[in-house]
C-alpha cells in the first residue's frame, strides 16, 4: 500500500468511525462499538508506524536531509491568486512523530476504556467522541496551511469540551468543560490575530511558504515585517507571540493554565489521552512548526517564550507538591513537563551547535506521552478499584493491584529522570540545551526536576505504601480488567525503552541528523537531584507519620497558598465577576434590554397605537366614506383647476 494512501486512511478512518458511532450508535451494542473504536485505532496506529518507517527510512531523506513530503493538497477557499486556505496532508519529521504518538496513545486509551467505561450508559457516544478527537488531532499535526491547523485546533477544542463534560449531570463537570473551552477560545483569539498578522505580512497562509518567506535572508517580507516596532518588539515578534498565545492556552502555560486541573473532571482515560499526551502538546507542536521563523527572524520572541516556560514549570511543580487529589497532581505535573518542552524550544537556536533544544523538546514530547499516559491510566486503575480520587482513601495498594503498581513505579522513575528509563534521556537533553544557552533557566530546570521527583514519589508512596498492605476486597480486581492491564503494560514498555531511540538522527530543526550530547559528568547533577527528591519523599511518606504535617504547619503560609494554587482561580473569578461583569456586562445588558429591545418594542407599540388611531376611519358608516370621497374629489378638482389656469 502506498504511503500516501496510508496517510489519507490514517486521517479519515477515525472520522468515519466517529460518524458511524454517533449516527448509528443506538443500534449497536455498546461492547461492539468499543471493539469497533479500538480496532479502528489499532489499524491507524499500525499504519502510522508503517508510514513512519517509510518516511524515516525510505523516502523522507533527500540528500541526507529530511524534507517535507506533501501527500495531498487542494485549495479549499481561495481569496485571490496569492492567498488561499488549502487543505492537505504533509509528512515531515515532527508530523510523522506526532502521528505515531497520537495514534498509539489513542489506541491504548481506546483499549483501556473498554474496561474502564464498562457499564456506562453513553458508552457508544464516548467512543464516538474519542474517534472525533483522534481525527481532529491527527488533522492538526498534518496540516499544510495555518488556517487548516486553526480549524482542527478548534475541532480539538470541541472534542475536549465534549469529553470533559462527558458526565454532564455533574455541575462541576459542566463548569470544567465550559472553563476549558472558554479559556482556550480566548487564547485562540490571539492565535487568530497572529495568523492574520502573519498572513498579512507574508501574503500567504501556507506553512512552508510562510517559513520560506520569513526566513530567507534578505527577504522583502522580513524587512517590511520588522520595520516597525511596538514596545520594543517588532511586528513579526508580536505576531508570533500572539500565535504562541493560542498555543499557550492549549498547552496550559501560566496564566492560561487554569483549565487543565479542572479538566480532570472528565473520565480518566480522556485525561490520559487529551490532557497528558496529545491535545496539550498542540501548543508545543505549533511553536515547533513555526520554529524556523522564531529562531531566525524573531529570537526575542523565543526568549520570552523560554522565560514563560521556565516560570510555569517551577510554578506548577510547587503547586503539585501540595495537592491531594491524585489526578490534580498529575495535571500539574503535565503543566510542568509541557513547560519544560516549551522552554527547551525557547532556548534553542538555529544552526550547528545550538539547535539541540528543538530535538530535546520533541524527544521529551515523545517520551512524556508514554509515561504520562501510563501514569494517568494507572491512576485510573487505582480510582476504579478504590472509587475515590483522594490520596487519603488510598494506601498500601501494592499487593492489591500488582500490575498497576509495577507500571506506575516504572512511570514515576521515568518522569523523575532516573536512568536508564526514557525520561532520563529526554530531560538530559533539555537540561544540556539550557545549560549551553541560558544559565538561570538551567538552574530552574534542575530545581524543578528535583521537585518533580519529589512530588511524583510522594504520590507513589501515598498510593502504594504508607499504610500496611491490605488485601482489599479488590483483590483479584485486576483479573477482571485485562484490557486495562494490557494497555498499562504496553505503555510501560514504551516508558522504559523509548529513551534508547536515537532521536536526533530523525528529528531536528533543519532536518539534518544531529547527535544529542550525552556527557556523563554533566548528567550526574540532575540525576543526583532527582534521587535526593525520591529520598525525601520516602522519608516523608514511606510509612505513615506526621512529619509532612509538621513541615506544612511550619511553612503554613507558603503551603496554604500553594495548596490553593496560589489563588490564581480566585483572581480570575474576581476580575471576571466584579470587574468585567459589573463594568461591561451589566451596562451592556441594560443597553440591550432597554435601548435595543426598547426600540423594537417601541416601534411595535407605536405601530399599534398608530393603527388604533387610524382604524377608526373604517367605521362602517357610509356617509363618512362619502364625505371623504367628496373631500378628495374637491381637492383633486382644485388642483386640476389651479394647474390649468
Amino acid at each position, binding site marked *: 500500500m502506498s504511503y500516501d494512501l496510508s496517510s489519507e486512511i490514517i486521517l479519515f478512518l477515525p472520522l468515519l468511525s466517529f460518524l458511524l458511532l454517533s449516527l448509528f450508535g443506538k443500534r449497536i451494542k455498546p461492547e461492539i462499538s468499543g471493539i469497533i473504536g479500538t480496532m479502528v485505532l489499532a489499524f491507524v496506529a499500525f499504519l502510522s508506524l508503517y508510514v513512519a518507517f517509510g518516511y524515516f527510512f525510505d523516502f523522507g531523506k533527500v540528500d541526507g536531509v529530511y524534507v517535507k513530503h506533501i501527500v495531498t493538497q487542494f485549495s479549499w477557499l481561495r481569496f485571490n491568486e496569492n492567498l488561499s486556505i488549502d487543505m492537505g496532508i504533509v509528512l515531515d519529521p515532527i508530523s510523522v512523530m506526532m502521528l505515531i504518538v497520537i495514534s498509539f496513545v489513542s489506541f491504548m486509551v481506546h483499549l483501556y476504556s473498554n474496561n474502564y467505561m464498562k457499564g456506562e450508559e453513553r458508552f457508544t457516544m464516548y467512543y464516538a467522541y474519542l474517534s472525533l478527537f483522534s481525527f481532529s488531532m491527527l488533522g492538526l499535526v498534518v496540516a499544510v496551511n495555518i488556517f487548516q491547523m486553526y480549524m482542527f485546533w478548534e475541532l480539538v477544542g470541541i472534542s475536549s469540551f465534549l469529553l470533559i463534560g462527558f458526565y454532564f449531570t455533574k455541575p462541576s463537570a459542566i463548569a470544567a468543560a465550559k472553563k476549558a473551552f472558554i479559556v482556550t477560545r480566548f487564547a485562540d483569539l490571539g492565535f487568530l490575530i497572529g495568523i492574520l498578522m502573519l498572513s498579512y505580512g507574508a501574503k500567504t497562509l501556507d506553512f512552508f511558504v510562510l517559513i520560506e518567506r520569513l526566513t530567507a535572508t534578505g527577504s522583502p517580507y522580513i524587512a517590511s515585517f520588522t520595520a516597525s516596532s511596538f514596545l520594543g518588539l517588532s511586528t513579526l515578534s508580536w505576531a508570533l507571540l500572539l500565535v504562541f498565545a493560542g498555543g499557550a492556552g492549549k498547552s496550559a502555560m501560566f496564566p492560561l493554565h487554569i483549565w487543565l486541573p479542572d479538566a480532570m473532571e472528565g473520565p480518566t482515560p480522556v485525561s490520559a489521552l487529551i490532557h497528558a499526551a496529545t491535545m496539550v502538546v498542540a501548543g508545543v507542536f505549533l511553536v515547533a512548526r513555526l520554529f524556523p521563523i522564531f529562531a531566525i527572524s524573531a529570537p526575542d520572541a523565543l526568549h520570552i517564550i523560554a522565560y514563560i516556560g521556565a516560570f510555569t514549570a517551577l510554578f506548577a511543580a510547587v503547586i503539585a507538591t501540595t495537592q491531594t487529589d491524585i489526578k490534580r497532581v498529575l495535571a500539574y505535573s503535565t503543566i510542568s513537563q509541557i513547560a519544560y518542552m516549551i522552554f527547551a524550544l525557547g532556548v534553542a537556536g538555529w544552526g550547528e551547535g545550538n539547535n539541540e533544544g528543538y530535538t530535546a523538546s520533541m524527544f521529551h514530547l515523545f517520551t512524556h506521552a508514554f509515561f504520562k499516559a501510563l501514569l494517568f491510566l494507572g491512576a485510573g486503575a487505582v480510582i476504579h478499584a478504590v472509587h475515590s480520587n483522594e490520596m487519603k482513601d488510598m494506601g498500601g495498594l501494592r499487593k492489591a493491584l500488582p500490575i498497576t503498581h509495577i507500571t506506575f513505579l516504572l512511570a514515576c522513575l521515568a518522569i523523575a529522570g532516573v536512568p536508564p528509563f526514557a525520561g532520563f534521556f529526554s530531560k538530559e537533553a533539555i537540561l544540556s540545551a539550557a545549560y549551553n544557552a541560558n544559565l538561570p533557566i538551567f538552574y530552574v530546570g534542575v530545581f524543578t526536576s528535583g521537585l518533580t521527583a519529589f512530588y511524583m514519589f510522594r504520590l507513589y508512596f501515598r498510593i502504594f505504601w504508607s499504610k500496611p498492605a491490605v488485601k482489599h476486597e479488590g483483590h483479584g480486581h485486576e483479573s477482571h480488567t485485562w484490557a486495562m492491564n494490557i494497555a498499562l503494560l504496553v505503555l510501560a514498555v514504551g516508558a522504559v525503552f523509548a529513551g534508547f531511540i536515537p532521536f536526533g538522527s530523525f528529528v531536528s530543526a533543519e532536518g539534518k541528523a544531529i547527535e544529542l550530547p550525552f556527557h556523563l559528568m554533566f548528567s550526574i547533577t540532575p540525576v543526583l537531584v532527582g534521587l535526593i527528591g525520591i529520598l525525601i519523599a520516602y522519608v516523608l511518606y514511606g510509612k505513615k507519620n506526621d512529619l509532612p504535617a509538621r513541615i506544612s504547619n511550619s511553612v503554613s503560609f507558603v503551603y496554604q497558598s500553594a495548596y490553593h494554587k496560589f489563588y490564581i482561580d480566585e483572581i480570575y473569578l474576581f476580575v471576571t465577576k466584579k470587574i468585567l461583569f459589573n463594568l461591561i456586562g451589566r451596562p451592556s445588558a441594560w443597553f440591550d434590554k432597554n435601548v435595543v429591545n426598547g426600540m423594537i418594542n417601541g416601534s411595535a407599540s407605536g405601530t399599534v397605537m398608530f393603527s388604533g388611531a387610524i382604524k377608526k376611519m373604517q*367605521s362602517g*358608516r357610509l*356617509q363618512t366614506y362619502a364625505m371623504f370621497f367628496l373631500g378628495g374629489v374637491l381637492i383633486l378638482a382644485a388642483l386640476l383647476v389651479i394647474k390649468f389656469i
Partner: protein
Amino acid sequence: MEQVPLSHVLILSSILFFLGIYGFFTRRNLITVLMSIELILNSVNINFVAFNKYLYPHQLEGVFFTLFIITIAAAEVSLAIAIIINLYRRFNTIDIDDTDTMKY
C-alpha cells in the same frame, strides 16, 4: 329662454347637486338618502340638457344621456328599495347608523 345665460342654469343645477350631496351626508333614514341621490341625478340631467341646448344645438347627445340616466336611475332605485326592504326585514330598522357591521 335665450336671454337666460347658460351660467344661471348651471348655477341652478349646482345648487341642486350640492343640496343632494348635503342630504346624502346628513339624512339618517335610508330612503331619504335615496331621495337625495335622485336629486343629484336630476341636477346632472339639467346640466346635460342645458349644455345641449346652449352650446351644441345641432346635436342630440345631451338628450340621449339624459334618457339613459333616467332609465338607469329607475333601475337603480328599484334595486335599492329591494335592498332596503331586505335590510328592514333583517335588522328591523332602516337607520343608516345601524348598518355599520362592515367595520374594524
